[in-house]
């Protein structure tokens, strides 16, 4: 399961999450969503540190964050 879950239909391609990500794993993808925006996508789920910055600045509540529980 993914750590950074981006709802592509909500994303408006504003790029704020990309500007605040400390590990630079978010990019604008090259596909379009139903509203004609190019949604953000995560390039490397394993690098996510779960800092929560992207979810905090997202104006469209498009990002949800999860993390594996250590066994």
């Amino acid at each position: 399961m993914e750590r950074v879950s981006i709802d592509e239909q909500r994303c408006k391609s504003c790029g704020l999450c990309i500007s605040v990500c400390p590990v630079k794993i978010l990019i604008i993808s090259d596909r379009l969503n139903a509203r004609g925006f190019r949604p953000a996508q995560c390039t490397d789920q394993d690098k996510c540190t779960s800092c929560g910055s992207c979810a905090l600045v997202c104006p469209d509540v498009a990002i949800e964050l999860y993390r594996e529980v250590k066994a």
Partner: protein
Amino acid sequence: MAEQMKVIYERPKSWANKVTHYCPGCTHGVAHRLIAELVDEMGLMDKTIGVWPVGCSVLGYDYFNFDSVEAAHGRAPAMATGIKVTNPDNFVFAYQGDGDLASIGMAEIVHAAARGWPITVIFINNGNYGMTGGQMAPTTLLGQKTTTSPLGRTPQTNGFPIRVAEMLAQLDGPAYIARVSLDSPVNIRKAKSAMRKAFNAQVRGIGFSLVECLSTCPTNWRLTPVESMERVRKEVMPYFPLGEFKVVEGVL
């Protein structure tokens, strides 16, 4: 066995599952989300009534799972006062932009603050009238170009910007007045903390509370969302300093 996942961040329960009509990068969405998170965390969903303004956030009532009403232009604090007086057990907040609160609704907000009834106002300051196409607002900075000040705002013809938080903090009525910014993760965290105090001021029956949020309007500022955030830090914050201007005992 399926991997166990811990939730770091999920959509608030009081946030309706809808895509907002706001422009990409508009911080109205951030302010909305903070309200929804606090309503969830403070267990207020069943008794919250939101009062929505005229402006970009006129359709705000659509995005939450609690009850909402729509006020006439600038009259949200008056309406919120009426609702609070007749339903003292409900949690009532008004959400207003700067054209709504600082221009046509200036009398209502000043008297609501002076009366000091326990209502909460979330004030979005983005320096222009966003919905109608970026006209000059009372909070437009000197020199800022808008569609009605195409050469930049000048004090001779347009007067000076109004610092609403400082002005209202001089009154004896309010319990909590603060200015926050929605420009970066750290400031958004501080904004949420300020809004929590403002909500507490009402829940504990202490008095009127207002949180002014420095926001962006990328479309009418003719900037990208990321450039707009930089403008807030470089140009808006020096004129509209962040901080708590009035904190009555018991709010914290």
